[in-house]
């Protein structure tokens, strides 16, 4: 007996739905695959065990490297969490003199690349730096070596706390003050409110910010090399640049990845226990009025962070820039600036769009496979930039040689590489590296959308796209803006991949900084560094004004 028309119709609808489901699922799978490609190249380095190098590392420095890396991770982890969360809470929930300005001023250090802060601090504090010279003026025998783990931790913390601060801040903003009001009405004091109500609700965002800053710490090469502080990353570079053993370097890098995978899994565990949902527009009618000396203490605390992490370093850069102006500044700066901003803006839009689609697909049609793909997509950030760049270069080189160039010739083109040394290649590399940066903020805000809302919308006949544009986007606004900003600024600061993959003539400010710092001419790097910081400030200001 043939099935009735109604049954057939239902089957067709099911098939359509199945197809749609798979189309959506393809997005995270593709993104994960893209990140996996260069990572796979790195992992495939194990095909040839570099026993000699490993033995040598084990005999001479492996323990030291592990200890140093661990000290750095613990130090920076504690530092950025304490600093970022406390500042975010003070700036969003409490009230003190100058709070409104402080709220955005605290994001400013984000614009300073780690390597820049490192050479500024060392320039100020080194043996012939102005501070030691001054002190020796009074005490001729005064000499101190500031190149120790504590300084490195302080520098990294000063640059990376904005990740935690921004994510925690957007979590506190979306919580709204009514949560705080309710808990105060129910008899909790300020501290209890913070620890028992706000903090648990903001935990997914805080953990996301923390994991970003830890990944950045793991991958950092610039700051640690200025201080000649040996970490896992410096060992990677040493194997590559000194032993010319890219295989061993890649193997070390894949171990680094292993750390990260474990950290990401832990993070997901932390997220799943976070209870934070939002189904309404947050209200901010009320702020905790700090009393008496506390007001000024809070103000002093927040402003001193701005002073030490931003104002003083920028002032030092400014001083150097004035000295070097005649020698260094020329018309090419407009071009450097243009390239830097263009690359940053394009990448930010691309990366955040893909992140959004990915997470949206996961939410609507996700399964364990897509979940895994998203985790993989978030790994690109942890690899040291230049290791990732090499992975990308090897992939692109292969694709060019085997597929794209023959195709191009078949279409009547030349033999020039398609991906290598082209803009597309560079943007792809940024995508691979910075997906994780956008994932954090967008994911933590998408998880706060209560499932009943999209369900209600769907039951009222709202289509998937309409759901995205009318429901999700407005609700995710703080997260999306944060993600755009982070990616934009991160791309502008990015150095190794830009160096290796940029097309001819596409020099950026970061490239210029490399040219100078590689020669040890820090003062000459001041003008590009200062320009980079100032350009990085604009989006920060824009985001603040719009995120209010």
């Amino acid at each position, binding site marked *: 007996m043939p099935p009735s028309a109604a049954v057939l119709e239902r089957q067709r609808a099911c098939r359509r739905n199945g197809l749609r489901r798979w189309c959506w699922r393809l997005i995270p799978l593709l993104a994960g695959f893209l990140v996996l490609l260069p990572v796979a190249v790195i992992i495939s380095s194990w095909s040839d065990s570099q026993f000699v190098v490993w033995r*040598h590392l084990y005999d*001479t420095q492996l323990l030291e490297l592990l200890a140093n890396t661990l000290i750095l991770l613990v130090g920076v982890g504690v530092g950025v969490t304490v600093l970022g969360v406390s500042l975010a809470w003070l700036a969003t929930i409490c009230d003190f003199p100058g709070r409104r300005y402080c709220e955005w001023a605290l994001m400013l250090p984000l614009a300073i690349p780690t390597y820049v802060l490192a050479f500024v601090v060392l320039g100020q504090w*080194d*043996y*012939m730096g102005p501070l*030691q010279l001054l002190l020796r003026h009074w005490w001729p025998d005064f*000499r101190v*070596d500031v*190149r120790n783990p504590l300084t490195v931790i302080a520098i990294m913390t000063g640059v990376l706390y904005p990740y935690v601060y921004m994510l925690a801040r957007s979590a506190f903003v979306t919580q709204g003050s009514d949560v705080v009001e309710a808990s105060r009405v129910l008899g909790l004091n300020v501290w209890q409110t913070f620890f028992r109500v706000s903090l648990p609700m903001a935990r997914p965002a805080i953990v996301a910010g923390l994991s970003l800053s830890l990944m950045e710490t793991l991958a950092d090469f610039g700051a640690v*090399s*200025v*201080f*000649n502080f040996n970490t896992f990353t410096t060992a990677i*570079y*040493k194997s590559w*640049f*000194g*032993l*010319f053993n*890219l295989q061993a370097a890649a193997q070390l890098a894949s171990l680094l990845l292993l750390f990260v995978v474990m950290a990401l899994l832990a993070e997901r565990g932390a997220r799943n226990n976070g209870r934070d949902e939002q189904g309404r527009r947050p209200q901010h009618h009320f702020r905790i009025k700090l009393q008496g000396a506390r007001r000024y203490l809070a103000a002093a605390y927040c402003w001193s962070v701005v002073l030490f992490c931003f104002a003083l370093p920028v002032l030092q850069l400014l001083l150097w820039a004035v000295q070097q102006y005649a020698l260094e500044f020329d018309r090419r700066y407009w071009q450097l600036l*243009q*390239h830097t*901003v*263009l690359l940053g*803006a394009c990448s930010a*839009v691309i990366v955040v769009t893909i992140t959004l689609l990915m997470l949206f697909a996961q939410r609507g049609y996700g399964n364990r496979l897509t979940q895994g793909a998203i985790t993989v997509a978030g790994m690109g950030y942890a690899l040291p930039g*230049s290791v990732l*760049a*090499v992975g990308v*270069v*090897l992939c692109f*080189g292969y694709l060019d*040689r085997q597929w794209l*160039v023959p195709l191009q010739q078949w279409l009547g083109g*030349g*033999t*020039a*590489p398609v991906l*290598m*040394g*082209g*803009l597309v290649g560079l943007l792809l590399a940024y995508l691979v590296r910075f997906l994780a940066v956008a994932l954090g903020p967008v994911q933590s805000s998408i998880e706060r959308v209560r499932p009943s809302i999209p369900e209600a919308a769907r039951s009222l006949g709202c289509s998937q796209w309409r759901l995205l544009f009318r429901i999700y*986007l*407005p609700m995710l*606004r703080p997260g999306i803006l944060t993600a*755009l900003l982070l990616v934009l600024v991160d791309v502008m600061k990015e150095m*190794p991949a830009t*160096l*290796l993959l940029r*097309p*001819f*003539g*596409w020099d950026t400010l970061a*490239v210029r900084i490399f*040219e*100078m710092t*590689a*020669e*040890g*001419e820090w003062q000459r790097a001041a003008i590009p560094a200062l320009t980079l910081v100032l350009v990085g400030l604009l989006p920060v200001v824009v985001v603040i004004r719009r995120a209010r």
Partner: protein
Amino acid sequence: MFFKKCSLPVLLAVVFVLSGCSDDSGSGTGEAATGQLVVYTSRKEHLIKPLFDRYQAETGVNIQFVTDAAAPLLSRLQAEGENTPADILVTVDGGNLWHAAEEGVLSPVESEVLVRNVPAHLRDAGNRWFAISKRARVIVYSPERVKPGELSSYEALADERWQGRLCLRTSKKVYNQSLVATMIEADGAENTQKVVQGWVDNLATAPFANDIQAMQAVMAGQCDATVVNTYYFGRLEEAMAAKGEQLPLKIFFPNQDGRGIHVNISGAGVTTYAKHRTEAIKFIEWLSEVEAQQMLTDINQEFPVNPLSKSSAEVQAWGTFKEDDVPIEVTGERQAEAVMLMDKAGYR
């Protein structure tokens, strides 16, 4: 709301499409146009671009270039394979050039001009690369605190008399790796191991990230002597002179009774898959001629490789010296050995 929010990035993207893509990104055409050259260089832009500009003005050849560290450039060349747009690789340090040649990305060049202008020990035995400038690694000391006669050789810095008086740059820098490689060649691995161990024992403070920092530590009185490349000394001298001060440090040329001081090079080679091979050879030949040699040495206070050229007045003021004429390839062949030896000695 959403569109308002997106307006800025969209606007930027439009600007990008309108302006950026019409840029001379040079990756579009693969046709071998005459009068074109593509250079990958790990010599920094401000130290090489003046030469490109001069050559362009003289010959009309358009030179495009990309800068990066030596190892990434080599990886890029290897990944691009026969599609590479690069005609020439310019890099510093003999070890880096040797590795590039070993990896097969450089091709032999038959050129009478280069054989005439570049001494044999400063070019590859297989003519795959040629030095274009020379720099020496010397001892820089504080004349106030170091008595005449205390200094003699690199090896002597391991003596007990230098206990707590020595500063060094990190062993991660290729210049130190090459110095130790030539020491292994001259003294043998065992003796060199002892010497490097002695250096480490004598350190007044942890190794520095660059030569300038090490010299500043000597100026500040943290230590009495250090080992640096000559042009860093020149730069510091210049910076002090600009402030109307005299640099309170002096250069000492070590090992004058033995093999002579360790010299390193910056050099160039033609890539294996160069699309403009003839042009590339012409350009490297031009680099070895007196005029370009003069420019090269003036830009960065280095020594010319062409015997007919002279160093700048500032460089000549440092005095004359005997140099180690061991073939530069040694720095590449023994680089890994040197790195491991320094690791074993705890030289960070």
